[in-house]
């Protein structure tokens, strides 16, 4: 679920869920060209891979149990990414759409909070910054 290769979105859309699933919801997170008023030219994702994989698996299990959805798949790309490229893809499949939407949202929210992946943005003026994801439904960032 961690890759350093471009993500094939067509392949993700084409995946067949189990036959009991009438709904699939997808989230694609892409590299944006701006952050807090600054122009971003590219970015670098760093990852603590063994822990990230464990955390993503745990998040998927937790959300499945909580929402009742049948399938959750996640892929996160790391390394250097250009503007517009997909950094993370989540697909959720379930019997009905309500829980698919809810689960999809919860998975990305939890990934942003608890997966050891860091993002370095490179700006137009060639400066750079390790970005902290500070916005999490009002939850504190650290213990």
């Amino acid at each position, binding site marked *: 679920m961690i890759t350093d290769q471009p993500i094939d979105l067509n392949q993700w859309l084409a995946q067949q869920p189990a036959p009991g699933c009438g709904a699939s919801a997808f989230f694609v997170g892409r590299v944006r060209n701006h952050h807090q008023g600054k122009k971003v030219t590219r970015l670098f994702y760093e990852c*603590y891979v063994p822990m990230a994989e464990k955390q993503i698996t745990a998040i998927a299990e937790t959300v499945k149990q909580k929402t009742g959805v049948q399938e959750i798949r996640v892929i996160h790309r790391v390394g250097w990414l250009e503007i517009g490229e997909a*950094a993370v893809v989540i697909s959720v499949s379930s019997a009905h759409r309500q829980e698919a939407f809810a689960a999809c949202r919860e998975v990305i929210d939890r990934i942003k909070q608890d*997966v050891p992946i*860091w993002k370095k943005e490179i700006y137009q003026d060639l400066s750079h910054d390790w970005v902290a994801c500070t916005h999490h439904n009002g939850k504190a960032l650290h213990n």
Partner: protein
Amino acid sequence: MKIKVLFFAQLREALGKEMLWLEVDAFCRTRDAADQAMREEPLMPYQNLPLRYAVNHEFQPADYVLREGDELALLSPVAGG
């Protein structure tokens, strides 16, 4: 006892390496080991950076008791997704 300490992102860049071995007291807690590791001179500018701790790939609190050979990761604020 010896533990392995891992650094990422700005800490790794400042230190110039991803990992160091740390000699700590037996029954050392995560926060104490982290404080000791963060005393490395290149990490001085980051003393107020909020850190979470992971031991052997699991989040652990500041008072978790470490064992010989544990892998302690100092996790600065994450930004995945």
